[in-house]
């Protein structure tokens, strides 16, 4: 092959590259969109996982909303205290102390504890199972265990163990995606610092609830008697009031339904961090 062919080819390609790059450089200079540099700065501070917990399409969208629309800076749940502090410093907005919240499935009725009234052989989706006569469980409130929440979790923090959804609190980023995905509506956000929870959502009367599940709230009110501040009743169901700490840890032992559970105790025994 002639050496001139190589030189001509290199020259032509180099020429095209020079023309194109100068065109791009000029375009970048003359057609540049003026963007508030703060948006880029804030975006770098955000976690960048685009989970949607803030209600915007992604971290970039949220950063833009903070700068242009004056959106509150405390909406990034996964970012936690560090991001909040950084955002507060950058924007000058004052904020309260950050309290980490994590999702919790208020049910402990796994395959061993909860009774099933029929066999479900449809799509492995909680909505589909719930559509069919209110689910295959005798309990009309508990976790169905077909994993609709686990599939929407952006960080795989939900495990389906023995037909029960379990949120791992140390993995949960608090984006709330699972809450909307649950057809039973039994997932809610709880402060990560609180260790004692009511793991039952059954509003049935005691005998009915007990028949359906071995770990059900029977509405005996013992927890309310022991610790009025931390527990309230909603009909036949005990509700944990997370505004107050549990002052009397005996509630866990005394609960006849075994549905009030201390997370820390399970940790020490080496069980999953959440049950």
């Amino acid at each position, binding site marked *: 092959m002639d050496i001139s062919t190589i030189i001509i080819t290199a020259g032509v390609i180099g020429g095209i590259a020079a023309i194109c790059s100068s065109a791009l450089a000029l375009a970048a200079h003359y057609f540049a969109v003026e963007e508030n540099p703060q948006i880029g700065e804030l975006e770098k501070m955000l976690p960048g996982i685009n989970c949607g917990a803030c209600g915007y399409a992604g971290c970039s969208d949220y950063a833009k909303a903070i700068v242009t629309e004056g959106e509150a800076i405390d909406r990034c749940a996964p970012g936690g205290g560090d991001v909040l502090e950084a955002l507060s410093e950058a924007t000058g907005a004052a904020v309260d102390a950050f309290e980490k919240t994590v999702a919790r499935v208020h049910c402990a009725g796994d395959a061993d504890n909860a009774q099933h009234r029929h066999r479900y*052989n449809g799509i492995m989706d909680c909505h589909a199972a719930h*559509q069919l*006569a*209110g689910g*295959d469980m005798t309990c009309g409130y508990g976790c169905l265990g077909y994993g609709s929440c686990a599939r929407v979790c952006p960080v795989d923090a939900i495990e389906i163990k023995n037909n029960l959804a379990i949120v791992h609190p140390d993995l949960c980023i608090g984006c709330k995606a699972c809450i909307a995905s649950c057809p039973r509506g039994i997932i809610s956000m709880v402060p990560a610092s609180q260790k004692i929870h009511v793991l039952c959502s059954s509003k049935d009367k005691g005998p009915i609830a007990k028949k359906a599940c071995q770990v059900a709230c029977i509405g005996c009110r013992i927890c309310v008697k022991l610790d009025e501040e931390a527990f309230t009743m909603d009909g036949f169901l005990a509700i944990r009031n997370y505004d107050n700490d549990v002052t009397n840890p005996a509630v866990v032992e005394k609960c006849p339904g075994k549905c009030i559970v201390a997370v820390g105790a399970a940790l020490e025994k080496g069980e999953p961090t959440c049950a």
Partner: protein
Amino acid sequence: MRVTRALRKLRGSIHPQYFKGLTSDRNIVEMPLPEKLYLSMAQHLGAPAKPIVAKGDTVTRGQCIAESAGFISVPVHAPVSGKVIDIDTAPTPSGTMAPRVILETDPENTETVTMPPMPDWNERPQEELLKRIAEAGVAGMGGAGFPTHVKLSPPSDKPINTIIINGAECEPYLTADHRLMVEQGKGIADGIRIMCYILNVKTVFVAIEDNKPEAIKTMQDALENLEGIDATVCILPTEYPQGAEKQQIAITTGREVPSGGLPMDVGCVVENVGTVLAIADAIKKGIPLTQRVTTVTGHIVKNPQNVLAPIGTTYADLVSFCGGLTAPAAKVISGGPMMGMAQPSLAIATTKTTSGLVVLEESRVHIYQAMPCIGCGRCLEACPMNLVPAAISYAVEGGDYDRAESLNILDCIECGCCAFVCPSSRPLVQHFKLAKPKIILKRRQAADAKGAK
């Protein structure tokens, strides 16, 4: 009176095993009153009826116990005299939760209240007849339960020129409509005359599958000498889903209902034979809809037959009236096996739409494990609505409901042909049933948001 054949074959369609012989030769039997009746308030499509009785009230047979809660809604009447022992919330056969009234039967009290009969119906205004049909609680008895008075009052810009009476009964096992046509041909003819008068229509097709020669014969006799009505018995080939209304319109009249449209868009009204009979009873005798014929069948039912039972009878009572079971039941289906709903227990009670109760034993229940799609295209061939079930099910599985909508999932009639033919046992129609309500809800919310602006 003419007799024709279907204009063409169905597109798609399947040929399941029918097992209609279990009950098709046996007369309809009236069931003695059960001890308790469980009347659901959501027996029809639309808003559930509102109970107007309280716990402890005594009711008389034929008395209205729940009033209609809107235009697309119908009232519920007491099928027997007795006492209201409770009002609670319970699952309906279609799987949703709805209020229900529990009646304790009083066998001593044989009193019956009816509305005034209208033997001179063809001299009264149409509005009066429509009002009567609504008051009698008549809803489509084929399965969907659409309120009949709504179907019979089309908007003025959609003129109706053809009535199709659906006697296809393409679902396997079921023979309730078949027996009704054989035994009550004259009553059906009366109902047809009333419908023709209300809608001012002269053309009527009675569509019957060719596996019911006896019904074809009796309907021919019954439709002889209907003055001023051009009645045709249309004999359809036996294939599923011949009884779906859009398919039936296409093969009897050649008209194609547009995507997202209703039969009235092509000038048709389709009514099930049971509904036609209920219309005749409501007008001519003033009797509200409080009982229906249900096929209680299955190879393990000792004495399978068509039972005329009051609405609200539990499945357990129906089965024990038919002699009980010879083997443990593995699956109980309300309706036919193709489109019916599997039931959690025999404690569920019948409604106005319960055309059958199919009890299957272990060996007939296919516990499937869904496998990946192998791209064979058999669901495309089987779909009577020209859809692509494989692609739609992938979209639904991946949560991409917008794509499912763009693939016209809302045109799916949920006949189940796709899942029936799938060699990978994929739950195709199950996916569509899951996604359709969500997409409809989303559309409605979007429309509301637009309206609010």
